[in-house]
């Protein structure tokens, strides 16, 4: 689907951002990416979406080399990216206009554009804001507009760069739920975050440090890896609690750490007299 072969990238001032990355993202995968500030997560996102080109190595998006200018339109159609700060990607006066911008640039006929916009509005539940200016919406709503703007181009792969970091947990969850629904419909998702809590259900998690992928595995193995803790990344409270309980001889199975309800259920099963 998207493949990185020996990819390195340095900023214009020479600071290396990514070092010799090999990565294969498969169709339909939900890949979580986590790491501290400056670990290279955002650079990875920009390379995956073809917005940055590698200085060494190759990035192939469904067989298209991102360094080949003639493939650019095909790549844009295929991969969409949503950023942390939605403001950076607004262009239209109203939500509707903003959503139409992408499909217009793909030169779709007007009827088709309208369909794309309506579908994107429905998927993000933004219908009632279609005539509002994105500027008059709250932070969370704006993030949804940014997501809808990308959805309107009907990409098969979506990349999210810390989209929830400026939202309240409920709206963060709501955005994540929307993203999970898109995943169920078959979209490939790359989800970058600070918040491990959001990656409990991911198919695969990449942990980045200093421009390298240091861990690559399923959530259960990644969460319990001591390397993660040495990086100072905060574990979700319930995972941390389960980890501490384990040291005291109480084992909480991984699936029970997914929600407070499940966790409490397990504690009751263990310690409530029947």
């Amino acid at each position, binding site marked *: 689907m998207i493949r990185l072969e020996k990819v390195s990238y340095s900023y214009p001032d020479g600071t290396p951002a990514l070092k010799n990355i090999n990565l294969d993202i498969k169709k339909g995968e939900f890949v979580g990416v986590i790491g501290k500030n400056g670990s290279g997560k955002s650079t990875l996102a920009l390379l995956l979406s073809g917005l940055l080109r590698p200085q060494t190595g190759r990035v192939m998006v469904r067989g298209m080399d991102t360094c080949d200018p003639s493939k650019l339109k095909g790549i844009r159609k295929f991969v969409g990216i949503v950023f942390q700060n939605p403001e950076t990607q607004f262009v239209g006066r109203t939500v509707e206009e903003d959503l139409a911008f992408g499909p217009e640039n793909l030169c779709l006929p007007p009827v088709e554009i309208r369909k794309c916009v309506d579908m994107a509005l429905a998927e993000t539940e933004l219908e009632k804001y279609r005539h509002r200016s994105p500027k008059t919406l709250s932070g969370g709503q704006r993030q949804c507009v940014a997501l809808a703007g990308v959805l309107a181009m009907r990409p098969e792969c979506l990349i999210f760069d810390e989209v929830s970091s400026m939202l*309240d947990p409920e709206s963060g969850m709501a955005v994540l739920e929307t993203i999970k629904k898109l995943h169920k419909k078959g979209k490939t998702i790359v989800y970058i975050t600070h918040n491990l809590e959001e990656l409990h259900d991911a198919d695969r998690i990449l942990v980045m440090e200093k421009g390298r992928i240091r861990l690559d595995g399923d959530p259960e193995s990644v969460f319990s890896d001591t390397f993660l803790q040495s990086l100072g990344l905060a574990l979700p409270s319930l995972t941390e609690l389960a980890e501490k309980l384990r040291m005291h001889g109480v084992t909480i199975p991984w699936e029970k750490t997914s929600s407070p309800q499940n966790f409490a259920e397990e504690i009751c099963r263990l310690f409530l007299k029947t």
Partner: protein
Amino acid sequence: MPIILENVSFSYSRKTPLETPALRNINLRIEKGEFVGILGEKGAGKSTLTKLFNGLLKPETGKILVDGLDPSSKEVKRKIGMVFQQAADQLFCKTVYQEIAFGPLNFGCSKRETEERVYEAIEAVSLDLTVLTRDPFSLSGGEMQRVAIASALALRPDYLVLDEPITGLDPAGKKEILEALKKIKEKGTAVITVTHNLKGFFPLLETIVLIKEGKIAFQGSRESYLEKGCIPLPPIASMIKELRARGLPVNPATFTVEDALEEILKLKSAFEKENNRN
């Protein structure tokens, strides 16, 4: 003396087709020295509320008094220190020293007094003195946020109002800010913060104000917030609530992983004792 809001309403773009109501009939009282968390979903009106405290926004109807004064008076600007969500937005000087000294100098403090206040503020947020000569924009996100807080503290405010002070910071940066705010509160300054980060803030909050669609949905102590079963709750508190609902005797005031561990281990030993007896 407290901050008092009586029947306050506010709309954006008033008397235009884009008029958007933000707050309706807010009655609120915030005492000096409290640690208050303002919670609510996106677009609920939390940030709008804080901007009313010091006159950045004027209420459409209703009355606001800060220690008996009108929020637009100069005295209130000194009494209330504001820190906005993006610290970088409110930093503009060449050095951290100039940044923190800006407020006191504008309020007519002498150079000597200003210097005293800069050192006091930098200490309050536990920043190293060596940052004073640095460019604020060369600092990390957490450090920048602490400079923004120090700038507000340099006016020796009675109320420190913050909008999402730990959003977007990494875990270490979050911890630094939480510790600084705890210390500031202990010295007697009221800390009023808009936050979504219940996991970080819940152990510190004394009073909670929950805003829903422009109205106050809950206002009271953290304990009554738990009792009434309000949401949102941080994961640990939520799990503890579930345990209590299922009849397990755990302390409802359990907010941290360490406390929860202790509570569960108590359950474990009680259970084992019971088993041994049988």
